[in-house]
């Protein structure tokens, strides 16, 4: 017994030679990358930019923090490196960093416009392969160069990377693994949010800030087109993300009505018409009346029906415009092809698999909205003075 325990002890002690005591990395020897931007230059080289927070001016009580947060830059800095591929760009960047780049906390990936139009496949591949990277990072496209967007300051958050992330969470969050899934799925295309620079809206202040409003529709791994103002809400409708957002539509000459959506549900119905697939997209939207400029009273069922009709019209317009545009460009963002792949696989394989984009152009899609206003916040009575 004693011999066995001595033997065991010897084995364990010798396994210390395998250990990590010299793999020890201090918290202050790492540069935590919060957001990265990928750009492509004219000559085809990649440019990788990183946004790294400066720990000494963040958080931290008591000790020597404090300085560096005044005036210009927040507690972060942006640097970039270029190379023939992404890894080479990283190496170029590391050569100018006193701390080791650490990507495990990178939560936002910004793809520049030029790069996005040429294909994001390589970027997503990098994220997938590297164990340090998180597959839950948000993928966002930027209008213009990613490097410029990374430099924009945000007044609410200390770090712009956080700001971008929070904005994405409220609109449409597409994580890396979701984008990868959508790219690989037959019959469904991915959507990613777009950020752009916009001028500050305060008089007397110049400068630019981040704005996230539109979406980029992909075809494969390339960005196909960017939605305009009217189409952007439709993206949210199709992805069940309209909850908490509002739509405004004109009721009459007297004014507009604003409704806030509290529930939305999307279902697809499928019929075969003359050997061709035909879909009906049904959206059920429940809402609350928020602003009632024409002062109509919704107690009257006739007026209620009219309002609902106008609401349904508005949503239908939005969704139809998006679907028409997308299908014209060949992107199936609602996932009709995916539906066929799952439920009618043999037919899919036979007839539609190879040129689904071409089929999309004359795919018959009907949009049906079922609207409902559940609550009102004002009864529409004129305030008499």
């Amino acid at each position, binding site marked *: 017994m004693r011999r066995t325990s001595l033997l065991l002890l010897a084995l364990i002690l010798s396994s210390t030679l395998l250990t*990590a005591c010299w793999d*020890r990395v201090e*918290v*202050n020897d790492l540069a*935590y990358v919060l957001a990265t931007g990928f750009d492509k230059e004219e000559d085809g080289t990649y440019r990788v930019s990183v946004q790294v*927070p400066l*720990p000494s001016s963040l958080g*931290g009580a008591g*000790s020597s923090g404090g300085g560096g947060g005044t005036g210009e830059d927040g507690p972060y800095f942006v640097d970039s490196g270029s190379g023939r591929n992404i890894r080479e760009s990283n190496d170029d960047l590391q050569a100018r960093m006193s701390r080791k780049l*650490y990507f495990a906390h990178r939560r936002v990936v910004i793809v520049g416009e030029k790069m996005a139009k040429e294909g994001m496949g390589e970027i997503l591949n990098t994220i997938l392969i590297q164990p340090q990277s998180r597959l839950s990072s948000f993928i966002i496209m930027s209008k213009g160069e990613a490097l410029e967007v990374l430099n924009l300051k945000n007044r609410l958050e200390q770090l712009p990377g956080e700001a971008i992330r929070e904005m994405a969470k409220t609109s449409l969050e597409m994580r890396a693994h979701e984008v990868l899934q959508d790219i690989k799925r037959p019959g469904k295309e991915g959507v990613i949010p777009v950020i752009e620079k916009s001028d500050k809206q305060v008089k007397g202040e110049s400068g630019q800030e981040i704005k996230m409003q539109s979406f980029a529709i992909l075809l494969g791994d390339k960005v196909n087109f960017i939605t305009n103002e009217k189409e952007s809400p439709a993206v949210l409708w199709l992805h069940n993300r309209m909850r908490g957002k509002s739509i405004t539509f004109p009721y009459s000459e007297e004014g507009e009505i604003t409704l806030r959506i509290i529930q939305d549900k999307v279902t697809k119905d499928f019929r075969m018409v003359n050997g061709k697939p035909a879909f009906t997209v049904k959206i059920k939207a429940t809402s609350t009346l928020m602003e009632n400029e024409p002062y109509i009273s919704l107690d009257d069922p006739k007026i209620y029906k009219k309002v609902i009709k106008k609401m349904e019209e508005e949503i239908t317009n939005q969704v139809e415009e998006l679907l028409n545009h997308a299908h014209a460009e060949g992107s199936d963002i609602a996932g009709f092809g995916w539906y066929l792949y799952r439920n009618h696989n043999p037919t899919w394989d036979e007839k539609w698999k190879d040129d689904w984009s071409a089929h999309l152009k004359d795919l018959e899609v009907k949009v049906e909205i079922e609207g409902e206003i559940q609550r009102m916040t004002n009864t529409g009575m004129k305030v008499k003075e």
Partner: protein
Amino acid sequence: MKLRRNKQSEKKSNLHTDKTESQVHSSLDENIDILKELFEDCSDVIYRTFKVGSHQACIIFIDGLIDANSIQFHVLDALEEASRESLSIEIVKDKIVSIGSVKETEKLDAIVKDILSGNTGLLIDGLNEALIVDAKGGSRRSVAEPETETVIRGPREGFTESLRVNTALVRHKIRSNRLKMIAKTVGEETQTNIAILYVDGLARPELVKEVMARIEKIEIDAVLESGYIEELIEDNSWSLFPQIQNTERPDTLAANLLEGRVGVIVDGTPFALILPTTFWQFLQASEDYYHRFHISVFLRVIRVIFIFLALELPAIYIAVTTYHQEMLPTNLLFSVASSREAIPFPAFIEALIMEVAFEALREAGIRLPKVIGQAVSILGALVIGQAAVEAGIVSAPMVIIVSLTGIASFTIPRFNMAISIRLLRFPIMILAGVFGLYGIVLGSTFILTHLCKLRSFGVPYFSPLGPLNLRELRDVFIRAPWWALDKRPSQTVKDDVRRQKENVRPTKKQRSGLEGGNA
């Protein structure tokens, strides 16, 4: 430790080696001479000679150990008033001396032993028997609240240093003839009286036999405290975990006796031993059973969480900040990073410094006089902690971790288990600093395996979680209400398991019976 009898000690006459003179002589003077030689230079042994009728008599006692009044009235006065009839020991014992506990003996060494225990020896010239009168007195500490085990609700009696007082306190709790107390003496020089307590019919007979066998095997010169016995009879002395519980409270001892355990009370110390024990007993406090079960459940859950924290928290912090930075939430990581900017030491060294300083502070705090103790400890913690952070020697998160760990180790009700956990913290910290999270898992697995393997007098140490017994768990992580604790724990009691009648709670009919009728 074996007794080594070297040549030197044989020069002094020791009662135990001297087998020649052990018979009481008829001549009083001879007896006294022998006694005086044995008690040479013992200035507290008093020889009081007097006359009983026509005979010389002598009482021998040790000053300070006897109740003088008792001896005065019941022995001296009684004897002096005795008529001058012929005396024999029987007459003296039966008719004259009117004290409760009286023994007659022919052996001189018995007299010497009893004198040393506080009894009084009565020798009468012409009789070759002597009388031993039990009139113990002297001043001992009175029954007070035990200082190491204070409760909010519950009795405030604690054991004292006198064996008889302690056994009386236990008798108060268990008034049954099934409570047996076996008297033994251990320790050559100290001749300490101990009592082994158990409830006949509840404690397993093999257990009682084993305990007695182990105690009888002890051959040591002194037993000053129950800790001596504890270390001499426990199963695995090398293990860091105690296998025998000690308590200063009679109600704890009584409750454990009624669950089939065996108790050992040692004269001269207020700490009684309870065996066998399991790991989970050290996380139980006696007042868990006196409060309503809601708070007991809450406190027990807290204790389990905090015992884990006390063991692993500094190690987890070291491992995560040194090797696994990706596991921290991003914002927390930035706080930690920013506070560690100016710190010259790596996380592991910093943790070690703080923990060692904390242990030293705690040890020093024990010896501080109570008056300045409070102020110094608060100031010390604040000043040292704050100043160290400001000077940039340790980081603020580290101070938080260390204080949390300290607090966590105080939630453990029993001191001996708290010590074990505190000691084990350091190897786990070292493992974490060297191997990262893998090291913590390794260390914890070792500890867990050891705990499961350990046995305390045959009972597996980690039951009812070790060998899983779901029924018993209702008293481990939670405390089932008293109406649900109707059976005794099965690790220690084999027969006679039922402790309570079923369905004792007031029924609905009974409750509603009281409702009507009141105005």
